[in-house]
């Protein structure tokens, strides 16, 4: 990842327009989303977005500041340089039946059928990248990847 990428943990209102407004603000300022994941947060009525954003020619903190201007956005935490757990998920269908190397890396078999095997794997960005490279050697039929989900490490 280049140093133009910021990782932001964003708490938002669960409203019909929230995602449009967040993505609109990012696009309008010339930023680019490299990864995104969305899910309910601890509080009812609120969601947490994890965003990997390329801030382009703008100053790095502009991403956070521009998102904070949105009324739908409750809190933005820039966790780029913080000590965090960042996890991504891959679900893949592979043609091969030789799965030992994938299983050794910690993949879990979800189902097996005539046209291949479906596996899942989660890890940090580098681990997922290596896992996907390994999948290539096994002949990927299909692959789906999530954006990162981030949590500060317990201290």
């Amino acid at each position: 990842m280049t140093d133009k990428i910021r990782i932001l943990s964003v708490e938002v209102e669960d409203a019909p327009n929230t995602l449009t407004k967040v993505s609109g603000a990012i696009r309008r300022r010339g930023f680019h989303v490299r990864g995104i994941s969305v899910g309910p947060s601890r509080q009812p009525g609120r969601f947490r977005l994890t965003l990997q954003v390329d801030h382009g020619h703008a100053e790095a903190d502009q991403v956070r500041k521009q998102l904070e201007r949105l009324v739908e956005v409750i809190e933005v935490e820039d966790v780029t340089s913080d000590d965090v757990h960042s996890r991504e998920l891959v679900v893949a269908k592979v043609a091969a039946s030789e799965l030992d190397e994938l299983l050794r890396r910690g993949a879990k078999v979800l189902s097996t059928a005539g046209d291949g095997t479906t596996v899942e794997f989660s890890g940090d960005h580098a681990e997922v990248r290596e896992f996907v490279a390994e999948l290539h050697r096994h002949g990927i039929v299909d692959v789906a990847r999530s954006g990162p989900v981030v949590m500060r490490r317990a201290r």
Partner: protein
Amino acid sequence: MILEALEREGVEYIFGYPGGANLPIYQHLHEFPKLKHILVRHEQGAAHMADGYARAGGKPGVVFATSGPGALNLVTGLCTAYMDSVPMVAITGQVVSTQVGRDAFQESDVIGATSSVTKHSYLVTRIDQLPRVIHEAFHIATTGRPGPVLVDICKDVQQAQAERVTPERLEIPGYRLNGHVDLAGAEQAARALSDAERPVILAGHGVILSHAETELRQLAEAAATPVGTTLLGIGAFPVKHPLSLHMTGFMGTGWNLKAVQNADVLMMVGMRVDDRVTAKLADYAPKVKTFIHIDIDGSEMGKNVRPHIELVADARQALTAIQPHVGNLNERRGLWLTQIDAWREEHPLRYRRSNGQLQPQDVLIDMYRRARNEAIVVADVGQNQIWAALWWNYDRPGLFINSGGAGTMGFALPAALGAKFARPDLPVWCVAGEGGFVMTAQELSVAVEHQLDVKIVLLNNFSLGMVRQFQDDFYGGVRSQVDLTHMPDFVKLSEAYGMPARRVERFEDIAPAFDAAERTKGPFLIDFRIDPEANVYPIVPLGKSLNEFWEAPQQ
């Protein structure tokens, strides 16, 4: 229920246009005599009228439009208000909630289309949301950095009956107001200003919005620091004050640009520091050691110029906090002020008047001689706007209104009408070129219908003057699509609308025409046939630094 809520918010005027999806609101309008509805002739006119109303009167402008094309016609007006931080609440009708997403008649995704030009927006699909949403909309539009808020209300919600509820206390977790001043930062700013050898303050629209003109003048005088304003900041500091640098930016005055480019401390108050202010960013204020930026919107810090001292706060509170800490001034301050006086002598505003043609500056100077600082000038966009900015000596906020950020042609006429609704006590002058004027000229009907005492000064050069000037100076002299020879006869056009007008082609006819305008109650138009070659000066060539400004040729 909507109208009740508006009454509760203290709304006096609504600028609007009915249609299929807001009929239920209009059905009950007559039951609310305190709400005065102004029927515009195009929705864009409604948005600009509300804008002028808000800028002149300080209260939020309110707009009604129907769904689809009605709402989409507001987009330019919302953008104009958004760029210039003007409080506005636009209430649009939306198709019945069960029809949303089915491409119903006159359905459009208004929230989607306006998200980038509104401070906030709501789609209301249930009646129980309505009281809270309207109350929040006014709160958000008018507080912090103001801006337009759009409320899109489904037609079935407009028709629904519900118990009357007064909205509970506002609780908007994602809306934070920056008010408190960082006192350490304020002290630091005061020290930087006091210690500076060559300080400059620039004031933007934020100073006007926070009513900080008195605090600004006190600080400038205490710190013996010259003050310039942005185009939208005009009025924040009296032009004739000895410390005044008048307007900054790429069409600013020569002595202002000299001061900015030689300053060692630059304090920027309530402004965005955009490209029209800085010109070539890399060469902006190159000798500054300390940039101080004060703005209520934290995202402005470092957006264009990275400040050394930043105060995210209301301008008035920040200036109030800074002033007591201004200490002994740098002993070389006197030299700096003398230097600025010399630059003011060396680079005065001037214009060519030797070719026998009617000069726009002559028109504006005569106007100013009559109105002094007891009239509101609403300018359009283009050469007319810069002439009106530079050739009047505005001494307080609220007298000069124009579309600075968006640069919306067609703004002046409807905004001037809105300003007159807000300030019936003050004369209102609309200054426009003929190009922008015809973009919204249909609103003359509103002026005549309400006999609004607005005087329209048309600076008519039969061309898109600013574009023509840019083509002449920066695009190889190729005049392309700027000829407006084919325009209506504006005197006959005014008469067709039912208002008097006259044409002026010679210098000696300026005064009699203004006399006639002033004698007439109600709207009046003067079609000034000005020198088609008249240009705006000073001007910084596109892409160049502020050092490289061009001045008007000598006589």
